């Protein structure tokens, strides 16, 4: 029974990574900064390398903290370039993301960290399929606390990140609405621009770093944008926007994984295709369907 040991933990990681990315993706979509997620996922690279050099292991809180610092630094530089250089968002992001990504590559090459974990293939596709939980033999075993200690580290790590980000989201939903809808009014009420800017970019950086390691950049970037964009096409309420994005993220993770693993075989492929790629494709497909559906609605009314 390989489902419990291989597919269940893999689907769990996919869902948790998708939920984490989709939650903060709402911030990006609502602020019309969809590419900031892409930029941040590149800007954190020097932080990840620095964290690895300090701690000697790619998956530690030190690495996360360093990546977060790099992400916040990058976001601050983008904001600074926009303000001082009077450049538009895309230009400022383009400059900072290439410079910081290049710095990260240089750090890898000069410090001999190459090949450890930061190879291109891994970074793009992630390693959802390699997550295994050997413990459960039957469905009942899942509930047995003895096996929880052997859970693949990705699952508690992503679940914890998602829980923390969700709590932060609930706590600041009112403030997020204010600074996104009417930023100058927010400033006149005394909500400082820099604080909100750093908090929002910090949340995105945390989600990107946490999900990136397990799921790879294709899945993370797709999940930052597609579920929130789909939700944007289906509702005009803030709370339904968030719930809908989480629903679409979960759906894409489950359907995408199943299609990649069993659908490809059913269609005659000799082996399963990459799960992260399958999930990203399904997320894009759902977005496409929502766009067509909305157009059809507008035409029929």
């Amino acid at each position, binding site marked *: 029974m390989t489902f419990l040991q291989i597919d269940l933990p893999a689907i769990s990681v996919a869902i948790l990574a998708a939920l984490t990315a989709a939650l903060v993706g709402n911030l990006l979509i*609502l602020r*019309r900064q969809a590419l900031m997620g892409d930029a941040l996922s590149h800007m954190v690279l020097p932080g990840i390398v620095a964290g690895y050099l300090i701690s000697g292991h790619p998956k530690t809180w030190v690495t996360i903290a360093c990546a977060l610092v790099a992400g916040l630094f990058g976001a601050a530089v983008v904001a600074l370039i926009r303000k001082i250089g*009077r450049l538009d968002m895309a230009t400022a992001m383009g400059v900072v993301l290439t410079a910081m990504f290049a710095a990260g590559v240089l750090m890898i090459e000069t410090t001999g960290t190459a090949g450890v974990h930061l190879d291109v293939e891994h970074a793009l596709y992630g390693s959802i399929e390699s997550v295994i939980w050997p413990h459960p033999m039957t469905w009942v075993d899942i509930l047995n606390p003895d096996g929880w200690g052997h859970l693949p580290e990705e699952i508690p790590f992503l679940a914890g990140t998602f829980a923390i980000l969700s709590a932060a989201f609930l*706590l*600041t939903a*009112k*403030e997020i*609405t*204010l600074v*996104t*809808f*009417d*930023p*100058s*009014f927010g*400033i*006149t*009420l*005394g*909500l400082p621009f820099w604080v909100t800017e750093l908090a929002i970019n910090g949340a995105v950086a945390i989600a990107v770093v946490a999900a990136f390691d397990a799921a790879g950049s294709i899945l993370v970037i797709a999940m930052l944008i597609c579920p929130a964009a789909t939700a*944007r096409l289906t*509702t*005009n*309420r*803030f709370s*339904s*926007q968030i719930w809908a994005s989480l629903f679409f993220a979960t759906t894409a993770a489950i359907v995408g994984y199943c299609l990649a693993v069993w659908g490809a075989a059913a269609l005659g492929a000799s082996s399963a295709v990459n799960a992260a790629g399958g999930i990203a494709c399904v997320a894009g497909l759902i977005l496409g369907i929502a766009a067509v559906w909305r157009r059809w609605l507008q035409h029929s009314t």
Partner: protein
Amino acid sequence: MSPEIRALLQSEELHAPLDRQSPLDVSGLTVAYGSAPAVWNVDFKALPGTLVAIVGPNGAGKSTFLKGTLGLVPTIDGRIGSYGLPIPKVRQRIAYIPQRESVDWEFPATAIDVVTMGLYRQIGWLRPIRRRHKEIALSALAELGMADFADRQIGQLSGGQQQRVFLARAIAQDADLYLMDEPLAGVDAATERTIVALLQRLVSSGKTVIAVHHDLSTVKEYFDQALLLNVRNIASGPVGQALTEETLQRAYGGRLAPPQLRAALG
């Protein structure tokens, strides 16, 4: 500029103390975008309980003046006070209605969500919105005849309705000074009458309203005081004194056609 010189320039010897009565006491406000000054050395003192129009040609720095006083754009120089205190200490007493362009109309917020934002300081940061806050917001919407549209997404309302929602937000805020960037821009005649009546009611209850206004022909009818701006303060005071043929021609660089001029002078 060295800190000593900056301190000297802002010291009490060079400036009169901030006026405790005045809702907005501005001296020497200068704002520049790049190297071009948008607002240059403007002094202006609003009297409490008055309806003040900020008038001037396009690019005269009307919006920038409001943004500069509120700290929304970086200022080069100037002392800004409200009721004798610097702006950050009196935010609770100031309500701001921004220009239409600075708001994201696509955002998934309903009319009542927007009005509730006026209560955020009262609710407190990171604290939840309660039912009573929604009730205050709803009654503010009702005051502008918008109660039926409370659950409509803000972008789906007409320009006049959107402006009423923003006014309701300012009312809910229960401020003493209202700074409005073109509250009558793009609204229908009925909404214009509603808004002007509301502003006059606010003023008669002792509040102060300062609004950027683009229609010269209605300044004298609607407003008590005027600040005629073209980068500098060209004239200010009671509308009758501030807007004369001479000051208007100076502010508009002689570009006003005789009918416009006659309309402005009422």
